[in-house]
C-alpha cells in the first residue's frame, strides 16, 4: 500500500504540478543579452572600422565625399580640382585602385579602369559609409588590398527635402520619401547638384593648364523595396542611377553609373541562413578632349550565394560562392573604331570560421578565385582578438589580398606611337606603346596589423592600429619598348592610425591621426600623393534652443607628387584648414544649416598643378518628417 500512498501523495500534494505542468509558479528575472550592433563589412572588434552615419554626414555638412572621407584615420583623398573632378582615395597608403568600393553590396568601380567615379554620387544619397582598413580579400575578392569602403544609399523615412546654395554658384536639391514597417518597407530618394566651379588647373599643371572654370552637375535616383518572408526570410530590391557631367582641363566628361541589386535570404533552419544576391552594374564614361575622344561602356553581372551556419552559439561558419562577369568596350570617336570589346569572368569560393576559445576570438578564412585570364589565385586571413579587461581589447591579423588586372590592363591594345624628338621607341617598329597584357597576374599583398581598443567609459573610445602592407606584382609599364604593362613593382606601406571618439553631455570630439610611410621598394622612393602625417579634429556642441555648432580642423603634412612641368617629382607643402558649421532646428521638422569652408582662405594643393576650394559659404534649408527616427 505504501506505493499507493506515494501515488496518492503525488496526486494530492503535488498533483497540481502533475496536472498543471504548463503553468509556472516562478516568474524569473528577465535575462538581458546584449550585443553591440556590428558593422556589416567587418567585425569592428577584429579590424580597423570607421562608421560614418547619416547623423555624422549631417553634422559635418560636408559638401562632397572628399570633405567627408579625409577626416578619417588611414584615408587620404586627392582630387584634381574642385567638386566633380577625378577623386582618388588611398587607404593606408596603398594605390587608388586598392580600395574596394561597394554600393549597397555591389562593386561600383568600372571594370575597365578599376576606379570608381566619386563625382557621380552626392552625399545626400548616402545613408551610411563603413570604411574598413586592412585586407578584405577573402570575403570580397579583388581590389580590397588597402581596405573596403562600403556605401549604403539613403533610406528615406517619411518625407525629406533639402535645398542648398553655396560658393562657386553651387546649388543642390534633394527630396525623398520612404516608409513601411517590419513587414514591407520602401524608400525613394532623388538628388541633383551643380556648380559653376573654378578652374581645376593652375600653371603648375603644365600642358593641362586651362584657366576656364570647370563646372559640374550630377543627378541621382535611388530606390529600395524590401519585404519580410516567413521564417526570418527577406527579399529586397535596390536601384541606384547616378550621372554626372564634368568640365575638365582639358575637355569634359559625361559619366553614368547604374546599379541594380536583388537579394533573397531565408533561414531553412534556426541556425542556418542563406542569402542569394544578384547584381548588375553599368558604368559609362564618355571623354571629350582634344586628341582623345572615347566612350567606355562596361557591364558587370554578379551572383553571390552565401551561407551562414552556427552549429554552436558563438561558432560561425560562413561559406560562399560567387560568380562575376565583366564586359567592357572602348570606342574611339575620332577614328570611329572599337578599340576593344572584351570580357572576363571570375568564379570564387570562400569559407570563414569564427570561434571563441578561452576568451579569445578567432577568425580563419580562405578563398580561391578562378579567373578567365590569370587562372587560380588563393588568399587567406587569420585574425585574433581578446578582451583583456572591460576597457581594453587587443586584436591582430595577418592576411593576403589581391587586385585582379582590369579590362584595360588586359585588353587595351595600346596608344598610337608618334614620332617626336627623344622618343625611345621607333614608331616604325612599335606602332603602339603602353599596350595591355592578357598574361598579367594579379597584384598581391600580404598585410599584418596589430590593434588596440580602449574604452574606459562608454563616452570615450580610443582605437589605434599598427599596419604593414607588402605589395608585389604592381602593374605598371615595362622598362623596354613598347612599355607593355607587366607585374613589375613592389611597394611597402606601413604606419599607425589613431582614432578617438569622445561624447559627453552635449559635446562631441573626434580625433583622427595617421602616421604612415609608403614607398616603392624597388627604387626606394616615396609613393606619390600620400602624405606622411595627417591630423583631423572635429568638435561639435549642441546648444539650447536647437542650435548646434561644429568646428573642424584638418592638418596635413607635405607629400611627393608628379611634376607636370619637369615630369619629375616635386614636393608639395603641407596645409591646415579650418571649417565651421552651424545648424539651427527651427521647428520639429525644419532646419537651417550653414558651413563656412576654409575659414582662413588658405591656398594649398593636394595634387601638384591643381586648385582647391578657397573660403566658401554653403547654406541649406532642410525638412525631415519623423525627425529623430533612427536609421538601421
Amino acid at each position, binding site marked *: 500500500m505504501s506505493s499507493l500512498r506515494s501515488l496518492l501523495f503525488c496526486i*494530492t500534494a503535488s498533483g*497540481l*504540478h502533475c496536472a498543471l505542468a504548463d503553468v*509556472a*509558479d516562478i516568474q524569473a528575472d528577465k535575462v538581458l543579452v*546584449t550585443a553591440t550592433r556590428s558593422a556589416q563589412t567587418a567585425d569592428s572588434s577584429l579590424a580597423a572600422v570607421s562608421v560614418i552615419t547619416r547623423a555624422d554626414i549631417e553634422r559635418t555638412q560636408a559638401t562632397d565625399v572628399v570633405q567627408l572621407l579625409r577626416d578619417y584615420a588611414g584615408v587620404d583623398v586627392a582630387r584634381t580640382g574642385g567638386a566633380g573632378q577625378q577623386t582618388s582615395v588611398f587607404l593606408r597608403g596603398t594605390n587608388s585602385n586598392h580600395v574596394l568600393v561597394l554600393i549597397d553590396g555591389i562593386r561600383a568601380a568600372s571594370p575597365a579602369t578599376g576606379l570608381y567615379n566619386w563625382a557621380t554620387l552626392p552625399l545626400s544619397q548616402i545613408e551610411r559609409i563603413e570604411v574598413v582598413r586592412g585586407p578584405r580579400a577573402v570575403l570580397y575578392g579583388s581590389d580590397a588590398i588597402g581596405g573596403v569602403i562600403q556605401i549604403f544609399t539613403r533610406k528615406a523615412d517619411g518625407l525629406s527635402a533639402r535645398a542648398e546654395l553655396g560658393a562657386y554658384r553651387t546649388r543642390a536639391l534633394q527630396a525623398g520619401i520612404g516608409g513601411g514597417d517590419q513587414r514591407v518597407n520602401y524608400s525613394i530618394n532623388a538628388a541633383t547638384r551643380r556648380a559653376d566651379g573654378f578652374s581645376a588647373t593652375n600653371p603648375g599643371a603644365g600642358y593641362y593648364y586651362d584657366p576656364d572654370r570647370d563646372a559640374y552637375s550630377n543627378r541621382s535616383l535611388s530606390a529600395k523595396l524590401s519585404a519580410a518572408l516567413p521564417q526570418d526570410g527577406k527579399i529586397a530590391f535596390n536601384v541606384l542611377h547616378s550621372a554626372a557631367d564634368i568640365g575638365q582641363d582639358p575637355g569634359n566628361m559625361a559619366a553614368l553609373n547604374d546599379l541594380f541589386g536583388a537579394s533573397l535570404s531565408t533561414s531553412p533552419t*534556426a*541556425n542556418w541562413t542563406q542569402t542569394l544576391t544578384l547584381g548588375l552594374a553599368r558604368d559609362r564614361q564618355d571623354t571629350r578632349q582634344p586628341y582623345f575622344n572615347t566612350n567606355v561602356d562596361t557591364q558587370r553581372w554578379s551572383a553571390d550565394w552565401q551561407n*551562414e551556419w552556427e552549429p554552436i552559439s558563438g561558432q*560561425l561558419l560562413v561559406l560562399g560562392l560567387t560568380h562575376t562577369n565583366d564586359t567592357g568596350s572602348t570606342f574611339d570617336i575620332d577614328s570611329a573604331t572599337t578599340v576593344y570589346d572584351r570580357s572576363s569572368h571570375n568564379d570564387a569560393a570562400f569559407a570563414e570560421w569564427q570561434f571563441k576559445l578561452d576568451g579569445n576570438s578567432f577568425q580563419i578564412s580562405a578563398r580561391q578565385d578562378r579567373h578567365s585570364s590569370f587562372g587560380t589565385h588563393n588568399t587567406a586571413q587569420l585574425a585574433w582578438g581578446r578582451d583583456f579587461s572591460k576597457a581594453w581589447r587587443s586584436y591582430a591579423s595577418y592576411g593576403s589580398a589581391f587586385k585582379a588586372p582590369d579590362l584595360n590592363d588586359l585588353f587595351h591594345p595600346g596608344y598610337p606611337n608618334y614620332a617626336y624628338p627623344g622618343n625611345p621607341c621607333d614608331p616604325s617598329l612599335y606602332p603602339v606603346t603602353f599596350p595591355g597584357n592578357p598574361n598579367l597576374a594579379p597584384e598581391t599583398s600580404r598585410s599584418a596589423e596589430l590593434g588596440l581598443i580602449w574604452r574606459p567609459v562608454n563616452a570615450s573610445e580610443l582605437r589605434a592600429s599598427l599596419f604593414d602592407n607588402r605589395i608585389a606584382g604592381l602593374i605598371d609599364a615595362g622598362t623596354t619598348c613598347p612599355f607593355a604593362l607587366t607585374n613589375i613593382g613592389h611597394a611597402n606601406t606601413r604606419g599607425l592610425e589613431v582614432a578617438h571618439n569622445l561624447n559627453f553631455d552635449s559635446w562631441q570630439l573626434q580625433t583622427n591621426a595617421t602616421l604612415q610611410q609608403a614607398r616603392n621598394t624597388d627604387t626606394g622612393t616615396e609613393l606619390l600623393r600620400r602624405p606622411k602625417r595627417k591630423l583631423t579634429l572635429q568638435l561639435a556642441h549642441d546648444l539650447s534652443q536647437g542650435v548646434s555648432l561644429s568646428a573642424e580642423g584638418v592638418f596635413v603634412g607635405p607629400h611627393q607628387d608628379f611634376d607636370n612641368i619637369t615630369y619629375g617629382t616635386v614636393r608639395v607643402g603641407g596645409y591646415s584648414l579650418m571649417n565651421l558649421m552651424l545648424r539651427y532646428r527651427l521647428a520639429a521638422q525644419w532646419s537651417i544649416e550653414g558651413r563656412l569652408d576654409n575659414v582662413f582662405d588658405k591656398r594649398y594643393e593636394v595634387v601638384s598643378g591643381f586648385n582647391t576650394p578657397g573660403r566658401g559659404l554653403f547654406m541649406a534649408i532642410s525638412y525631415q518628417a519623423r525627425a529623430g527616427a533612427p536609421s538601421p
Partner: protein
Amino acid sequence: MTQRLPFYLSVSLLAHLAVLLTWHGVPVTPPNLTEPGSLQIALVHAAQQASSIIAAVVPAPHAPSLRHTSTAAHSTIRTHRRHNARLAAATPITAQTTPTAVHATNGAPTTQLITSNLSADSEAHLQNALRFAFNSYFSYPAIALRHGWAGVVKLSLRLEPDGRLSEIRLIQSSGHSALDAAALATAQRIPPLHEVMTWLQGNSHVILLPVEYRLIDG
C-alpha cells in the same frame, strides 16, 4: 484504513476534478510587488492547493497548519507532514514571505508550510542565485547579430530540488527562430544549479524565464 481507501480515493478524485474545472490560472505577478517581473516565490500556490485538498480529505474543524499537526493524522497527512517537517527543520521561520492574495478554500490561515520556511532573506538569495546563474550562460547568437535580429524569448523550465533543469520548453517565440533555438540550446546546456539548492527546500518549481536579446548601437 484499508476499507476506507476507496472512499478517500473518490473524494480525492472529486476534489481534483473540482479544482481542474474551476482553475483560472496562476497570478504570477501579484498586485503589491514594487518591481514588476522580479523574482517572486509563489510556493504558496502549490501548498495552498495541497492544503485545501488535505483539508477536504481530513474532516477537521479547520485546516491545520501542518507544522503544528494534529494527532488526527491520516496516512496521507502523515506522509505530507513528514515531507514538510523536513523542510521546516531547515530554516527558521520568520515572516510571511509572499504578499499574495491566497485563496484558501476553507478559510484557512494564509501561513502555509512551504512559504513560511523561507525568510525574506532566503527568497532574496534564491532570486540572486537564479539571476546570476542564468545571466552567465546566455550569449548573442552570431547569425542573429549579423542580421540585426532582436526580441524576447520566453522559456518555461522546471527547477528540480537538486538544481537540475528539466522540461525546458519554448512558451513564446521572439519572432526569430535563431533566437528561440539559441535560448533553448543554452538553457539545455546549463549544468545543475547546486548553488540554489539551499533555497529550494527540496521543492521543484516551474520557472517562467524571459530572455531578451537586445542590440545596442556601438
